[in-house]
């Protein structure tokens, strides 16, 4: 019988890293021990545990990681709770990759890039940031503004400090919502911090995070003189098929699972605001 795109393949979770009190990163390989498939930064995949359910997650690892793919997943809802409770070595199912991904090999090339993330919003950014680091000379200067509730809620903190912060041409600006004793960095919300930092308006912006952060940061960027065509984001909606068929993620003439999840804000302006 022919293979249907709704039928997943079996994969193994080989490593689980605890990132924050409610975020873990899951390393997934195929039964042959290799990476299950190739992807573009910003794309997603369906993970499932039969009997628990299937859910769509943004792929966190960069395509340049040759051995596995990783997902940083926040605990919220049925499938994620099960994942957070699982042990290494257990099999799950996977299908994908889905969606358009970021234009890393076209529109981003030669540009200064500004990444703005909040909380678990770093997950999709992580993939594109590491991709750009890998092909460093294709892109201009890289700025990363990343904020979370507290220091413990910053995902990938060690990698950020030990690697991203050490590289020439990359400026990392971390912030947390409230002051705490072991934190000597910036304190405050992401939208305000972006304003304070004041960026050159020639940059291409990629922004992922909770809706309020997106809303206020976008307004700030517009005030600073950025155009909506320069700002990219990823959308999260309820998904089932991820193939543009079950109808669930339809907004206007777009299906977020296949036409997205990456959109520029000028593209979103042409859609009903049902997200």
């Amino acid at each position, binding site marked *: *019988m*022919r*293979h*249907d*795109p*709704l*039928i*997943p*393949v*079996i994969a193994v979770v080989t490593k689980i890293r605890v990132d924050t009190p409610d975020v873990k990163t899951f390393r997934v390989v195929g039964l042959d021990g290799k990476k299950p498939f190739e992807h573009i930064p910003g794309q997603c995949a369906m993970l499932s545990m*039969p*009997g628990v*359910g*299937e859910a769509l997650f943004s792929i966190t690892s960069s395509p340049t990681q040759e051995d596995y793919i990783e997902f940083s997943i926040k605990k*919220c*809802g049925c499938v994620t709770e099960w994942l957070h409770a699982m*042990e290494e*070595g*257990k*099999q*799950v*199912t996977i299908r994908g990759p889905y969606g358009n991904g970021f234009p890393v090999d076209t529109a981003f090339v030669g540009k200064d890039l500004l990444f703005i993330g909040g909380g678990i919003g770093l997950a999709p950014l992580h993939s594109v940031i590491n991709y750009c680091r890998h092909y460093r000379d294709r892109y201009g200067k890289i700025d990363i503004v990343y904020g979370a509730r507290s220091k413990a809620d910053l995902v990938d903190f060690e990698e950020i400090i030990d690697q991203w912060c050490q590289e020439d041409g990359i400026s990392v600006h971390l912030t947390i919502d409230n002051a705490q004793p072991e934190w000597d960095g910036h304190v405050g919300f992401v939208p305000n911090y972006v304003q304070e930092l004041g960026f050159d308006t020639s940059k291409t912006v990629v922004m992922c995070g909770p*809706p309020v952060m997106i809303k206020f940061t976008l307004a700030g960027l517009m005030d600073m003189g950025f155009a909506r065509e320069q700002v990219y984001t990823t959308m*999260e*909606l*309820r998904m*089932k*098929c991820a*193939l*543009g*068929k*079950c*109808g*669930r993620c*339809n*907004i*206007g*003439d777009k299906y977020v699972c296949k036409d997205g999840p990456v959109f520029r804000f000028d593209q979103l302006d*042409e859609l*009903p605001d*049902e*997200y």
Partner: protein
Amino acid sequence: MKTLSLSKLDALFAAISAAQKLYIPAEDAGGQARFTPWQEGLRLSSKLNTARSAKDLFFPQVENLVGFKVSGKQLEILETRDVTEDFVLFGVRACDCRSFDVLDRVFLAEPADTYYQTRREHATVVTMACRRPSETCFCGTFGIDAANPAGDVTCWMDDEQLYWRANTPKGEALTESLSCFADGGEEAVAAQQEATRAILAKLPLAGLRTEGFGGEHMMELFASPKWAELSESCLGCGTCTFVCPTCQCYDIQEFKNGQTVRRFRCWDSCMYSDFTKMSAGQPRPTQKERFRQRFMHKLFYFPENNEGVYGCVGCGRCLQKCPIHMNIVKVMKALGEEQK
């Protein structure tokens, strides 16, 4: 064109079903017409159309996708797909036949849905021209000719004869496998078509037009104040989506039985609050947004993505079945006025 005396209709059905499964519209004990596997003695319904649409044959309400066996840390994938054999779907009306084109645009788009695709490939669709369209019919609005339906074979029926015209290689193959036909019938069919078209032109909904609908009016009509009023009494029951031949939203669910998990899909409805609900929020918080989605999709979003093809075929089922008598015609009229 071929023809056959209606007295030999049973012989025709018997001949077709000797080689493959045959479905015809027949009435159940409650008097509703539905596509039913033919067997000796089953009578063709004289109703204008089946209560549920013909989509059931290609996109059933529930179907198994795949199974899993869970043992400790290990998983195994189990093939649970039903075997599909060739079948003939007889008596499909022009509107329902067009609905297959609409469904094809969703399910056969890359990557194709192979469950649907397999059924489509195994089916030979034999349509039946309408003679007595009803006051809820408006297929003409979408450029469908009820007197000349598409399909692999088109049939016409009068009080004495069945007329049969093969349109596709599949239809020709079916015709060639049957030896009961005589040639002829062109004149009788032409006369019937003329009479039917005269009735169609006088139907109460014959004047309903699609001007003003389509992708270019999407944002303008999304914002229309009419949606609040139109959706006010909607119960969110989903009846309109289930009886609709073009509604194709689905859900994927699982059924656990010991170590075995069956993953199946079932029809879903954009009219349900659950449809878009997430742990992070609800983009369509009230029935107004859900109601709007159903009609915006059929009249604006779908044509924008499909060369102007609308997601409605004018079958009239939602006009007959909605418990509060709301329907796409009322929506089109209200939005049409809005644009004036």
